[in-house]
């Protein structure tokens, strides 16, 4: 409904400019002498105004898009570093203590999705991946919260090893999140090679 209204406004605007241009051309052809300057100036003014607005819009959208992609790339680099954080590594030895786990940041992904900076036809693939990544990261963070609440507030410190084992089990959530991050990183690098590549290795390995 909103899209239909936006289209109508665009049709009305460009229709009015088009009709004005046609009238100015007819006026230019039937007029003679100095009176021909007026329709000529109007046509030039209309063309200059239209191209100026469109160019500024385009430049602004490109800037928003560049900032969004760079922030996104930076955030994915930070996620990779967090997945390598010692607090998310398997606890070695038997002296395992309760710990507060670091969370995966998703603010840049959230901002990118709501800003509309990725509105080009070619962005469809990236948008779909970002939505899936956001859901995975939020689910992972939620599980970390449940783990901490259980261990710290329910007096279940003896379950630290159980949670550590469950978190680090083969093909568990941690492995899945690493895989998804690696896939998202690769896709971003392939579609946007101009982005700076972070030093951190998202595979965690």
């Amino acid at each position, binding site marked *: 409904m909103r899209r239909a209204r936006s289209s109508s406004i665009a049709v009305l605007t460009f229709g009015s400019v088009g009709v004005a241009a046609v009238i100015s051309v007819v006026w230019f052809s039937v007029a003679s002498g100095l009176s021909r300057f007026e329709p000529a100036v109007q046509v030039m003014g209309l063309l200059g105004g239209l191209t100026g607005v469109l160019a500024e819009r385009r430049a602004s959208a490109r800037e928003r898009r560049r900032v969004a992609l760079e922030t996104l790339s930076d955030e994915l680099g930070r996620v990779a570093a967090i997945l390598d954080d010692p607090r998310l590594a398997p606890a070695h030895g038997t002296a395992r203590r309760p710990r507060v786990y670091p969370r995966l940041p998703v603010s840049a992904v959230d901002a990118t999705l709501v800003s509309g900076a990725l509105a080009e036809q070619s962005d469809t693939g990236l948008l779909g991946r970002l939505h899936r990544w956001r859901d995975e990261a939020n689910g992972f963070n939620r599980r970390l919260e449940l783990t901490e609440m259980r261990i710290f507030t329910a007096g279940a410190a003896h*379950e630290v*090893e159980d*949670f550590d084992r*469950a978190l680090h089990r083969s093909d568990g959530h941690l492995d899945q999140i690493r895989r998804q991050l690696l896939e998202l990183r690769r896709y971003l690098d392939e579609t946007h090679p101009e982005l700076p590549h972070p030093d951190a290795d998202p595979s965690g390995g």
Partner: protein
Amino acid sequence: MTSQPLDDVPEAEAYPAGVLYEPSPVLSGLESVLERTDYPWALELVGEDQADKFATVMSDLRRRHSVTGDGKRITSGYSYMGIEPTIAWANACGDRLYPVMKQSIESFAGRWASVRPSLGAVPYHYVSLGPGDGQKDAVVLQDLRRDNAQLCYVPVDTSTEMLRLAVRDLIRQLTLSRKRILSLSLDFSVRENLAELRRLLTGMFGDTPVLFSLLGNTMANVDDDTELLGMLATELLRPRDRFLLEVATTSSLDNDVADAAATEYERSRSFGEFVTSAVRRYTDLHVDMDSVEYQGSVERGHALLIKIIYRNQTGREIPITLPDRDSVRFRPDDTIRLYMTRKYAQERLGSMLAASRVRKVAGTHADFTAANNRPRFGMELMILAAQPEGAQPGATRLERTLADDVWG
């Protein structure tokens, strides 16, 4: 030896068709001799290839260098082989400074009495896996005999010396006929051996139910404790059979409590003599008691793990000669794990039993350290039964922890 119990066995099962059975003069002669003599003969059936066992001990002592006690080791079962370790064990059982064992033995009769009613008046035969010095088995046998005049006692252990220790006093104490006692020298941590044991018991006892026992926290001495219990349940338990299990417990799991548990063993000089006796027997190592370390830790959130290790603290390499004359280099800081035991978290016993596919029929718990400022250790005595076939999915569900549910 087997004439009386075989009366209960369906003929087709005990004597397969097509095979002609003649009474053996050895067995029938033995029975009459044992009936008449006062000489302390004891029947023993040896199922172990001692050479294999010997090779395993040698192989365990050739393991890799480890500073944490995870390399060279004396595996459970072999700690008791030979007369020296057996005597050392018997001494440790009576040591007042080794209160866990002493309290466990002294309180056993009362704890047995509280779980006994769950067995009902069914006539059981009794098979004791790792009978120790036989004191607890004497309590069980005395009770079971009231409901089964034909009661047979089958102690099973790798060590023939331990078997002898177990049955020697029992015969005298309980006036139990020697022909109703059959000691089996067998390593019950091997699945194939358990299958053979089951066949032997079925041949001897037929459908008469059997009460198996694994007492004195023996389960805690093996690396794969839950797997051992599961294997015993799967291979041995029939629907009417029962399993008497005794394990040491702790009320909390943390490193301070683990250290306290290790200290409990460290206090007893005679226990120290016992754990080092196997090394003295199998190697020419000059054992320095100050090099024996008692380490407590928390294991997989379900138990306190106590490892007793011997560390080379001399700072130089010591060549150790094994009984096969082979030499092993015992490098500085290298270790030999002498003994391993656990104290299980009380609240995790349920999931451990479920993982082993057994269900608890009855149980009783005794705290051995009542002072408020000390960790509470104790013993849990349980009567278990095989998990019915239909209950398997439920058991599998119990194996999952809350952590698995969160991260599943």
